[in-house]
């Protein structure tokens, strides 16, 4: 079927070797092992490991906090031209966007640390590159990216996993990197899925490997032959997810609703120029690609049918005999 994966490997290295691969459009080299990069190249980004401190004279740029039920605290500070980020007192990341270097703190939990790497530190690098980082999952259908925008807990990873189960490629599961032009593209993110353990057990996730488990999530690495490359994929549509008690329903999305939600779900610093830039990018994205709202029941049984419905509605050209009207 068009849009489903052909085999493609990554070049993830063993411990102590340089890792070369692609993530979010970066060509990544690393002195420590990384599990989730894809094959391919991009703008150079070097990953290193070093224990950093918050140096004297640094200034706070932003403080990000999570939902009370899932405590989260990320502090972003600036010293000279470099940013320092600490999440939950777990050690400081150094982010030098000018040189394209991200320094990670030593951490025996390499999976956890890499997941951190591809969240806020990567989003800061994308911001410096003037690409939009959106809290969204994305999958590839018929050579186009469908972007599922939703806050945490709305089931976007479960939906992305359902597409994986149906043979489609998962491009991102939490943060989607969008480059907004007249034909916007998405740069594939880390090849992982993080799901509630009971969700992971109820789905056929052949083509993934469980690399870690904790009380909240099973952490799955997408196997090499299901990853594909890090090459950009044209964005075919944006789908806003909303939970529903009644039924699954996919309807066209008003531009103003799309903009409001995409802006809320986009990564930006609390700086006027950053927010204005982000707003412009969001408006540009909404103006360039179609949007839908998906009201979805939290039902595993209907997921395969829902995937078919989304494909038929959002990518009708990929369905033999389907009308494109």
């Amino acid at each position, binding site marked *: 079927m068009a849009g489903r994966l052909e085999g493609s490997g990554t070049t993830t290295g063993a411990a102590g070797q340089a890792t070369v691969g692609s993530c979010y459009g970066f060509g990544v080299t690393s002195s420590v092992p990384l599990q989730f990069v894809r094959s391919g190249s991009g703008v150079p980004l070097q990953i290193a490991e070093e224990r950093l401190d918050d140096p004297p004279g640094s200034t706070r740029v932003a403080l990000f906090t999570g939902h009370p039920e899932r405590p989260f605290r990320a502090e972003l500070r600036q010293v000279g031209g470099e940013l320092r980020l600490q999440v939950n007192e777990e050690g400081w990341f150094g982010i030098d966007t000018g040189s394209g270097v991200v320094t990670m703190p030593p951490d025996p939990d390499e999976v956890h640390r890499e997941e951190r790497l591809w969240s806020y530190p990567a989003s800061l690098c994308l911001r410096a590159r003037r690409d939009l980082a959106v809290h969204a999952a994305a999958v590839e259908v018929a050579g186009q990216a469908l972007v599922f925008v939703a806050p945490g807990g709305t089931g976007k990873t479960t939906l992305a996993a359902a597409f994986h189960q149906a043979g489609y490629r998962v491009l991102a599961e939490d943060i989607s990197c969008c480059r907004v032009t007249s034909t916007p593209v998405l740069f594939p993110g880390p090849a992982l899925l993080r799901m509630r353990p009971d969700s992971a057990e109820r789905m056929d996730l052949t083509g993934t490997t469980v690399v870690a488990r904790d009380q909240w999530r099973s952490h799955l690495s997408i196997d090499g032959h299901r990853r594909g490359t890090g090459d950009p994929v044209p964005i075919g549509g944006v789908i806003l997810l909303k939970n529903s008690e009644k039924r699954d329903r996919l309807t066209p999305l008003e531009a*103003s609703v799309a903009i409001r939600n995409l*802006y809320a779900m986009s990564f930006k610093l609390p700086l*006027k120029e950053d*927010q204005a830039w982000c*707003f*412009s990018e969001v*408006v540009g994205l*909404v*103006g360039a690609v179609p949007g839908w709202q998906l009201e979805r029941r939290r039902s595993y049984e209907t997921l395969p049918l829902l995937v078919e419905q989304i494909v038929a509605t959002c990518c009708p050209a990929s369905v033999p005999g389907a009308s494109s009207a």
Partner: protein
Amino acid sequence: MIEPDTRLRRNSEAVYRQLAEGSGGVVLHVGSAQYHGVNEVGGLIWSLLEEEVTFAQLLTSLRTRIDDPPAGLDEEAAEFLEALRERDLAQFDAGLDE
């Protein structure tokens, strides 16, 4: 309540972006993320707020730019401006003096 001599202006924290032709635009307060979708007439009013104007001046300008203005234009413009003020996207003279 907007009076004819009420002075109006945009909040400098507000950003406007035009959508596709015929689809109006959107205004965002970048500090608070308060947001307002506007139709084409709303976009026109927004453009007239580039410089501080009184409500009377704004209505005069608006009428010259709209073919066959509706009877309730004044009230609709006032409602729209109030909606902008509620979201801190526009400021009235009372607000400026505070």
